[in-house]
């Protein structure tokens, strides 16, 4: 079963009289199977938060549909199995952390006999036990984020949806939160989160998608997406003819301090054939290795391509 499924999910903001012409989300269709840590990427304004709000039934779609575990997002029974952390969370400032978690536990129908223990358990996980009696209004951004995670995992959710969970945390806090997310995955929780911190996404996620201006640019397993990138060719110093020959087709070039060159080529059959021919002619001058872009390079390349088309 897919934990999240969207079919042509579209959202136009604005009122029925003056609706914006460009959709914030344009016909998004994705399927996320069980057992995934899914990274949802995109620049500011791409539609990530809009997608998450549609999944949580906080806003209504203009067209299309979203399904969580095969059910529409407004199904209250399904929400018992979902944990959600909004972007830049704000909680009732007049409540203490314990009172707020208690309210969340009641809403999640956690039996009263288990509530106190579970609150203590999650506060221990997020290292906020000594602040349970403090008012939320006095919390720093990092402390609020930790309480946000605590309320999201109170019900041992089957699906955790996190909107920019790592923003606002110091490096130590980010590492702790990443550990929490990976621990949740080990416990069988599916995780769906949006982030700008690509290095963290690359380490934690097995599937990603990239949005740009409401449109889906790519979607799939991280290993499959990054392995499609091409070849990296190292050319020794002095082989100017080879370099002149290959540079026009290279997507990236770098000259090292020793005079050698490194050229990057996209994965195309004709390019691969040509490189192999040159390699046969000059076996000692060039070295070809399959290149796997890092996520950051892949991300920026996708965005630049999308900007060029737009």
């Amino acid at each position: 079963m897919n934990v999240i499924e969207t079919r042509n999910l579209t959202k136009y903001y604005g009122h029925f009289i003056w609706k914006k012409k460009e959709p914030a989300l344009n016909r998004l269709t994705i399927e996320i199977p069980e057992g995934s840590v899914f990274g949802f990427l995109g620049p500011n304004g791409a539609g990530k938060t809009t997608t998450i709000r549609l999944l949580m039934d906080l806003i209504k779609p203009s067209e299309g549909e979203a399904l969580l575990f095969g059910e529409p997002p407004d199904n209250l029974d399904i929400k018992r199995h979902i944990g959600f952390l909004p972007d830049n969370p704000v909680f009732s400032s007049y409540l203490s952390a314990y009172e707020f978690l208690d309210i969340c536990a009641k809403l999640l129908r956690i039996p009263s006999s288990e509530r106190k223990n579970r609150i203590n358990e999650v506060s221990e996980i997020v290292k906020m036990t000594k602040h349970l009696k403090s008012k939320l209004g006095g919390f720093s951004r990092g402390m609020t984020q930790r309480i946000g995670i605590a309320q999201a995992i109170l019900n041992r959710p089957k699906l955790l949806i996190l909107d920019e969970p790592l923003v606002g945390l110091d490096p130590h806090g980010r590492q702790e939160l990443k550990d929490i997310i990976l621990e949740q995955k080990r416990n069988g929780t599916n995780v769906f989160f949006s982030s700008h911190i690509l290095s963290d996404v690359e380490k934690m996620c097995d599937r990603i998608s990239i949005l740009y201006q409401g449109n889906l640019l790519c979607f799939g397993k991280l290993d499959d997406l990054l392995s499609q990138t091409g070849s990296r060719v190292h050319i020794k110093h002095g082989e100017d003819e080879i370099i002149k020959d290959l540079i026009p087709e290279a997507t990236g070039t770098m000259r090292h301090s020793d005079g050698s060159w490194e050229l990057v080529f996209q994965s195309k059959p004709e390019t691969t054939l040509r490189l192999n021919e040159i390699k046969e002619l000059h076996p000692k001058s060039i070295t070809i290795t399959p290149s796997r872009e890092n996520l950051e390079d892949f991300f920026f390349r996708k965005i630049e391509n999308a900007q060029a088309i737009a």
Partner: protein
Amino acid sequence: MAIAGGTWRRILRMRVVYFLILCVLILIGSAYNYDILSMGMHKQLMIDVSLVLNTIAAILIAVSITFEIPKELKEGVASTLLSKPLGRTQYLVGKLVGIIVTGIVITGLITLGFMFVFNAAFGEVTSSMVKGHVLIMASVIPMSAIAVLFSVFIPEFLAATATVVAIWFAHATSSMSGVKFLYGGILPDLNLYNLRAEAVYGGISSGYILVALVWGIVFSVFATALASLIFSYKDLK
């Protein structure tokens, strides 16, 4: 009930609420000193002042929700709550129940305080006085429902203003008897709860209180249903 409990806690933690109750009781008590100014009618004056001040307190409590709901919607507090198995109607009903219970408790405390002060001043408390105050307590129900309705689609200060204006119109039904559409069901007739003369001189039956209470509940159900319909289409932060 979890949502109602949150509203209850919020108001009880506001020091201004206790200050309000204290000021009201002091003002009620001070009416005892106006025997000369009121030509010996200070007993009736005290009852009248207590009813007016209790009504004002009830209005202030009801209006306070117009700051809570829009703020929670604007800041995203409501989004976290609504991500739980909590329907939007349940959220509104929880807020409404919370403010009604809090309003009834606070006006009830004022009523008790008034009875204590009045008894200390004149050595008696009549049932008509108490019934007058019970009607004020019951008026919290429809006033809170109006406040919740406006909170759902208007920002805080405008919602508070609109609620106060609506409550004022709803109290003015006798002077606006020609404008039937206003109190033909859209606005409650809050004059039903405003029986100051009867509270002073007698004549409020228990049956009347029951009918006024039921009418207030029916109106609240209508206003909350309308609020829920509007809220169901609202995009949340």
